[in-house]
């Protein structure tokens, strides 16, 4: 990466992308809300999908990214 020569931001040094960093920041802001807006904002942002990588034209075992436990 070309930016490695300059002062790297602390979060990129920790292996995060800008998206992860901004998400953590956004979550902090959401936690600063007052009730009932806080629970509303937090329950709205649910992550759920399953991702599978392919090698040689075959799907590998999908990994599930989910906030809600599987029922």
């Amino acid at each position: 990466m070309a930016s490695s020569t300059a002062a790297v931001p602390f979060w990129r040094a920790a292996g995060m992308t800008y998206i992860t960093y901004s998400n953590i920041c956004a979550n902090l802001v959401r936690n600063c809300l007052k009730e009932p807006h806080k629970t509303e904002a937090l329950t709205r942002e649910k992550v759920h999908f399953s991702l599978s990588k392919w090698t040689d034209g075959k799907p590998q075992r999908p990994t599930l990214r989910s906030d809600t436990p599987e029922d």
Partner: protein
Amino acid sequence: MAMAALRREGRRFAPLISPQPITAAVRSSLIQQEQAPLGVRSISTQIIRNRMKSVKNIQKITKAMKMVAASKLRAIQTRAENSRGLWQPFTALLGDTPSVDVKKNVIVTISSDKGLCGGINSTSVKTSKALFKLTSGPDKETKYVLVGEKAKAQLVRDSRKHIDISITGLQKNPLNYTQVSVLADDILKNVEYDALRVVFNKFRSVISFIPTTATVLSPEIVEREAESGGRLGDLDSYEIEGGETKSEILQNLTEYQFSCVLFNAVLENACSEQGARMSAMDSSSRNAGEVLDRLTLTYNRTRQASITTELIEIISGAAALEG
């Protein structure tokens, strides 16, 4: 002799064995008269009645699906339209360069998880395939990233070698930015790219969707393009605040741009999906209505004919007795 008796038995039981709904079994004694295969002249109406019942049920289902799609569409349409404000500043700043020529292309095809929504999935798959042909060449590499079950099902047949990642189950919860950004993050971490091309159906109205590609360039390519001038050449006129270098800013921008573009693409595609499902279900319930009309006509005509025949038989029988 025994064989003949058996055959007769078999014939009598044939209507019982034949696959018919439960109602048929309940009224089997009635059917046997109606469907009596030998020596009885009246025409069976049972099959047509069953057919009419099933068509009616299908029509009910498609009507209900249309209603569901319509209410989902309304909820998602405003969100999709609002999310357009996310990528517009990026296009204003970096421009949209679909014709850029780079080595490593990644085509992100957005499709739905569920079917019964007209041709929106095949249009995005077709666009992706065309894009694949355009971008592939000697010493170039093009990969697919597939969002949604349907694109996977269509592309697995002839392009399975080029699929890199597939993502499903995105629409279990209502779509939100956190979810899509985590997804964008996962994609960015797992692919090497010079240009990401997001293919999706842009929602214009309930009956019209435009297959669209949005291009996200990697920071290196942005710099290369900026040096060669053109639309991106203006980038140098911006002042950079703070201690970050231009390449760092570009790296952050690219990542954020991709997540925003992906968020909008997923929303637009979900919106188009509901619209397409609505119109598909509308036309199929209209079709079911037409089929039902035709069946009713046939049914009534057959019934009328059999009644007429019976009347004629009775009258002529009576006339023969009198005469």
